[in-house]
């Protein structure tokens, strides 16, 4: 049944740049959650949150090196590979593998991001042994049989074709190219019909071998399992992998600003995107930028852009800004959609608010409110289910932030001053942004 919401679902994240690390906020008001670091004799490490209230176990892991590792001309390989791990492994063909997985009451998923290939498994605790064996098989000995490879490829190609005339999809490609030029971040993660046509099972095997190693592996587990059992299981699942991956280095980059991309279509609403420089999550200015973005157009529905564009004037259903942090690039991106006849007005309003932020920064009250929000909201946003906990703990480890990160982050946020925010706002937002307009040409009106 169709459901309509007052606020857009996932409003802060509809942007055109993949968000790999969403979790840079604060921490729970009171941490009821104990994270254990588990290390096996063969050196595999995982973070565990043990909990028996529900008889399920959730495992989440990541191998660093995602679609940026696709060989040139074979773009889409990592994504295709991710679609094939449940299509047969070891002695089990597709049918046998999926039947056993289903009998074991387990869900298994893989997906390729830009900077990592992610996997997860959710299983009823009393059936974890069978399920984990299947996971090991999928990771170590995926078959990539010709039949399933051809089928999954055809499904992906069908998806690409289906979107070929969709303005949003066309815009996404153009935006990536405009911002990142020849860098792998401008690629379509799912590839194209041409690049996918060249993908052979041997290419998939080679890519898996390069990417799947213990040295670039991050694991988090939540649920009904203790450290001792987990150690044995970790060795069983991941122990057979080689020590180190073989990754192609990826250059650092930044979005190209001061340009305008127009995607003309006759549409009932006009999409607007603006990109500014971002800040790496390793940068000491990061939390100042994070709080600044929060006040400008971040997740809370109390932001300046939200108030000006939606609440006061009803120009849009959604407007938001996001700090995008990939491994090799950062950006601040603003996105909205509005009536074609008022798109010029909306764009000008957004620019005015950004300029005001660059010139004046934020007030003490705004900063205080933002700090409370991002500190208080951590548990709600990041720890409210086993999957959320496992995702968050993988992200924290991948950024190498430390097991005390959740507590430390609170202090880092509290330490940010109005002056810090003013300074970072000026640095990031004074430049002329990249702007994309999807829809009818803007009507230049006075007003």
């Amino acid at each position, binding site marked *: *049944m*169709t*459901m*309509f*919401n*007052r*606020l857009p679902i996932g409003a802060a994240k509809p942007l055109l740049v993949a968000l790999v690390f969403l979790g840079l906020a604060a921490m*729970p*008001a*009171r941490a*009821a*959650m104990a994270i254990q670091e588990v290390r096996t004799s063969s050196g595999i490490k995982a973070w565990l949150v043990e*909990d028996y*209230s*529900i*008889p*399920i176990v959730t495992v989440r892991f990541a191998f660093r090196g995602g679609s940026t590792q696709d060989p040139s001309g074979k773009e889409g390989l990592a994504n295709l590979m991710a679609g094939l791990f*449940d299509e047969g492994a070891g002695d089990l063909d597709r049918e046998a593998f*999926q*039947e056993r997985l*289903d009998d074991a*009451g387990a869900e298994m998923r893989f997906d390729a991001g830009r900077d990592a290939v992610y996997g997860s498994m*959710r299983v*009823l605790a009393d059936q974890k042994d069978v399920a984990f064996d299947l996971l090991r098989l999928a990771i170590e000995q995926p078959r990539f049989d010709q039949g399933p490879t051809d*089928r999954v490829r*055809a*499904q992906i190609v*069908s998806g690409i*074709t*289906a979107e070929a*005339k*969709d303005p949003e999809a066309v815009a996404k490609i153009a935006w990536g190219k405009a911002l990142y030029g020849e860098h792998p971040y401008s690629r379509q993660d799912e590839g194209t019909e041409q690049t996918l046509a060249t993908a052979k099972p041997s290419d998939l095997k080679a890519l898996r071998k390069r990417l799947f190693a213990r040295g670039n592996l991050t694991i988090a587990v939540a649920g009904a399992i203790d450290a001792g059992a987990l150690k044995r299981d970790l060795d069983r699942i991941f122990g057979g992998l080689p020590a180190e991956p073989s990754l192609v280095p990826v250059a650092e980059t930044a979005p190209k600003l001061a340009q305008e991309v127009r995607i003309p279509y006759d*549409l*009932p*609403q006009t999409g607007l995107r603006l990109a500014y420089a971002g800040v790496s999550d390793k940068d000491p200015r990061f939390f100042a930028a994070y709080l600044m973005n929060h006040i400008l157009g971040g997740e*809370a*529905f*109390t932001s300046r852009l939200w108030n000006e564009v939606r609440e006061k004037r*009803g*120009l*849009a*259903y*959604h407007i938001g800004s996001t700090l995008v942090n990939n491994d090799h690039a950062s950006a601040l991106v603003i996105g909205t*959609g*509005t009536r074609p006849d008022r798109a010029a007005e909306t764009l000008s309003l957004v620019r005015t608010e950004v300029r005001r932020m660059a010139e004046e920064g934020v007030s003490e009250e705004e900063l205080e*409110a933002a700090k*409370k*929000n991002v*500190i*208080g*909201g*951590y*548990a*709600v*946003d990041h*720890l*409210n*289910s*086993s*999957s959320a906990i496992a995702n968050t703990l993988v992200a924290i480890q991948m950024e190498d932030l430390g097991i005390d990160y959740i507590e430390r982050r609170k202090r880092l946020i509290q330490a940010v001053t109005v002056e810090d925010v003013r300074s970072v706002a000026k640095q990031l937002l004074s430049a002329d942004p990249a702007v994309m307009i999807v829809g009818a040409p803007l009507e230049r009106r006075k007003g």
Partner: protein
Amino acid sequence: MTFEAAAVEAPRDESEIGNFLLSNGMEVVVIPDHRAPTVTQMVFYKAGNADEPPGKSGIAHFLEHLMFKGTSKHPAGEFDAKVAEIGGEENAFTSSDYTAYYQTVTPEALGTMMEFEADRMRHLVLTDAVIVPERDVILQERRLRVEDNPEGLLEEETQATLYQNHPYRIPVIGWMHEMEQLNRSDAVAFYDRYYAPNNAILVVAGDVDAGTVWRLADKTYGAIPRGPDLPQRVRPQEPEQNTKRTVVLTDPRVTVPSFEKSWVAPCYRITEPGEAEALDLLAEILGGGTRSRINQELVVKQGIASWGGAYFQGRSLDPSSFTIYGSPRGEATIEAVEDALDAEVRKIIETGVTDVELEKGKNRLVRSMIFARDSQTGMASIYGKALATGSTVYDLEAWPLRVRAVTSTQVQAVARKYLNPDRSVAGYLLPRESATSGDKSR
């Protein structure tokens, strides 16, 4: 009234689901979950788009937006700011049968959230100054989610064709021309009629116990006077359907066509015993995922579809729908996909399902309820939606057992009874090119 006296079903231990009534008639459900220091409260009003007066489509959803515009005690923005300050998450949603509001916060803030939520149950202040820009927001929402989205448009049109008389034919967001006319008095009338404790259900899931919830709820919601008793929710019902209808949407943004076919089917509230459970199993076996017949046959074996499946919407107040869908792959045509989907339905009508399929389908459905317990908001919404559409906490708790009891004969019987090919609605989403050559286009 004491806790015990008010209890519909008092919890026996700390982890058990609690269910009781406040003295003003508001029903409360508590789902304890102590894994993380968070709690979700959801308030469901038993009023949705199918309860709207004729000509006022979209008023339920518009009021949902207007509920954030402030009361005499808490001016507009104050509730949002409060939720933001503690880092909570909030939203609201409207469907045909209910409208719901929720916040996820730390347990310390639950009482404050209840205070705000109870306050706006009766004390909303609506002025034209807030009505007009918010009406622009919902019009923009319609542009974004329906007008600008071929799938959204087709969905709206097939619903309007599937239901010939029942208000489920009317889109939840409303028809554009009626939304443009919605005004203050429409909103106030809907609010005054339906927003009262005796027409509401509070669901609280999270790091809290039933006793605490009862104390906080009694102090906040309990202080709101009971409203007049509402009459039974009797909506216009469907006549006997006896035609096969087709809806075609061609759109220049579409490159690969897609197909869906729907039937009016019963719901958990109005059905013969076991039928809704059998329909849930039928949807699972026919098209519930990678192990389903549609996926195995159309996607894997025949290779004519990139995706396909089936679903049943049984949690509705009145009879709802059963749908099959798919999209062709490679050189295959949409007709081939439609024929193959029809063939899968026919096979079940003629020969039923195997015992092994049935057993595995049951395992998957029951397992999905265990997995659902992992999410507090997910659990709160499962309970709220079921209770707002006529089920009870007991029904939900007994559901796994009822699913287990379904026989293959029952699955075949509901397929035969409800998936009649001569009484269906087919929806086609087609590329614009076919508008000149395809015989299905207008």
